[in-house]
């Protein structure tokens, strides 16, 4: 059971990255390759709020969310909006992520920093398995976030507008949807959530400047397994990656850990090229 918890909590970290990728993808059909770095900044801000400023947990969460939202807004203005096509945005967001990594290193240094968590510090026993409260928090956060985003996209007017935008942005414009504004809002919300995610991820992974690059690839794999544009898919993909990684390391050896993850990815893409929950779209040619 401990191994399953470890896999799920690690998978939740990847799922959170995938959720961030998905929000931007659904809204603008582009990938924000700086998403993992935004979460890394969130972890560092959580550290500063907790340790340096000694703020209460609720204020730290708010601080991390606002700071990372501002960073994401700058990202949209600097690295996304001036660029015409989505392919180039892959490069510019990747570059912005590299800048964020460098800045984090300059501000907080290159050594890992222990980010405190507001819950119990000791590991707890749950259904015969052991896990930390922040690991449980990560699993719950990822599930709740996906449910909330799903509800928002289905029930709220702005959520429906974003979905309409992702289907056909020209038609959305004709229906009076402010596509630019919504795309900007998607980035800002991604930043807001990345700040929240950083608050939960920091206690597990430590706040470290290399965290972004460690998360970016696996988050993308989770997204590809689950299906681009599907929030439930990203969640399941993240859990699959985490569980496969842990079980492969346990029973086959750590050298098979990444190998197994990518084998699963290839298998999924061979059987369902759009991912487990991805939807194929018919287009008139």
């Amino acid at each position, binding site marked *: 059971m401990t191994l399953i918890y470890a896999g799920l909590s690690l998978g939740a970290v990847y799922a959170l990255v995938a959720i961030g990728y998905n929000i931007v993808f659904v809204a603008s059909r582009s990938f924000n390759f700086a998403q993992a770095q935004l979460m890394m900044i969130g972890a560092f801000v959580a550290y500063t709020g907790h340790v340096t400023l000694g703020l209460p947990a609720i204020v730290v969460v708010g601080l991390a969310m606002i700071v990372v939202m501002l960073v994401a807004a700058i990202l949209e203005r600097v690295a996304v909006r001036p660029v015409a096509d989505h392919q180039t945005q892959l490069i510019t967001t990747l570059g912005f992520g590299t800048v964020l990594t460098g800045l984090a*290193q300059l501000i907080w240094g290159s050594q890992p920093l222990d980010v405190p968590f507001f819950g119990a510090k000791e590991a707890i026993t749950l259904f015969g398995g052991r896990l930390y409260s922040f690991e449980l928090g990560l699993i719950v956060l990822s599930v709740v976030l996906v449910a909330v985003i799903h509800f928002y996209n289905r029930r709220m007017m702005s959520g429906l507008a974003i979905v309409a935008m992702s289907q056909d942005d020209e038609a959305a414009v004709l229906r009076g949807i402010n596509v630019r504004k919504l795309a900007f809002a998607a980035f800002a919300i991604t930043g807001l959530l990345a700040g929240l995610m950083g608050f939960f991820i920091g206690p597990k992974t430590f706040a470290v400047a290399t965290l972004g690059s460690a998360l970016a690839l696996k988050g993308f794999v989770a997204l590809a397994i689950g299906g681009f544009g599907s929030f439930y898919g990203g969640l399941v993909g993240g859990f699959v990656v985490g569980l496969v990684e842990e079980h492969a390391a346990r029973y086959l050896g750590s050298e098979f850990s990444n190998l197994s993850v990518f084998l699963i990815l290839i298998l999924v893409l061979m059987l369902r090229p759009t991912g487990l929950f991805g939807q194929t779209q018919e287009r008139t040619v």
Partner: protein
Amino acid sequence: MKARQARWAALLAAATLVLSACGTSDDAGATEANEPFVIMMSAGADAGPVTDQLLTALVSAKAGVATVNAAGGVNGRQVQLLESPDNANPTKALSALRAQLAKKKPDAYIVGAGSNVSAAVAPILNQNKILFMNAANIPATADPKQHPLAFNLAASPQVVVDGYLPEFEAKGYKKIGILHGNSAYAKTFGELSETTFKKAGYEVVAVEYDSAALDMTAQISTLRDAAPDVVVFNAYGAPAGYVLKGITKLGWDVPLLGDTSVSSTPLITQEPPVGLLGSPDLKNLTLEVTKSTVYDPAAEATNKAVKAMTAIGKINGSMNNCLSYDAILLIAAAAKSAGSADPAAMAKALEDPKVTEGAGTAIYATYPYSADSHEPKLPVDTHSFAAPGPIVNGQLGSPGN
């Protein structure tokens, strides 16, 4: 007429050649004596997880330069440190070295951190006959047949591994667990540990982890199932924290011996909330450290080095990261013994134990090189074991605490 002109021209050319040859020789001697002794060093401030090591290596090299220059330099020549801003990137290091060679050949080269950089620059340094002091050990630079002018500075993994045997004996451990990363050094450490411990009659179980992994539960579960008496582990940076938190999470009460990379990790040697020192995660941990990492008021050379280094900058991690200080002192001692700055003569001098013993080095008291091996054959007691504590100015128990 033409023949007479040709004779005069030939005579003039010969005279010019002779005079210029004499002039060059004298000028070169005078110029060399006046010119600084240039030591190039791999450096930078943006090298990811090894940034601290790189910065500390530079601080230690600068302190070494200040110490040597204060004592009269290298045979009277002031030492000049030339930083290669490569951030421990082998490609950039190679480009910077080639660019420098195109301008002027440095007298010596130092790598303070990054074995990939050592591997990249070693052949070029060898080709250009430049003395190479390498703190990021690679097997090639320990072999005088391949690289006669290169010398490894750090203790060999074998010395580090041998250091555990007296500890096992003293504590009565019979079954040893080994947990190591998958970097080049970590793999060597793991393989050597397994071989050495088995040869010494211990039962061994070894588990490798991916240095980029964010969770160690699986690897620790594997080790726990084998029920070793003690776990020897190697980790630097965040992985050291993942290992310790993972062991606490599983509620596994087992003695832990962290190698020198663990003792160089600030996360382990700083108190909460910045680090884990004093937390339950470290209650079973003992660190393997070099003698110079434990403060000793009687260790004059080490204390002098610490003073020189802290006057210049910060020592991040432990004294293990400060081998570049010793590198500069060894170069000066070799040049003095050889009576010249000729790299081959200096290399020969470094193979003489009397030269390295008298160099005044701080991290290790001596660097026993030989004509057969340019890896310092350090005694086993070079390393000792200590409970985790705050490392200040590179040392446990430092009066700076």
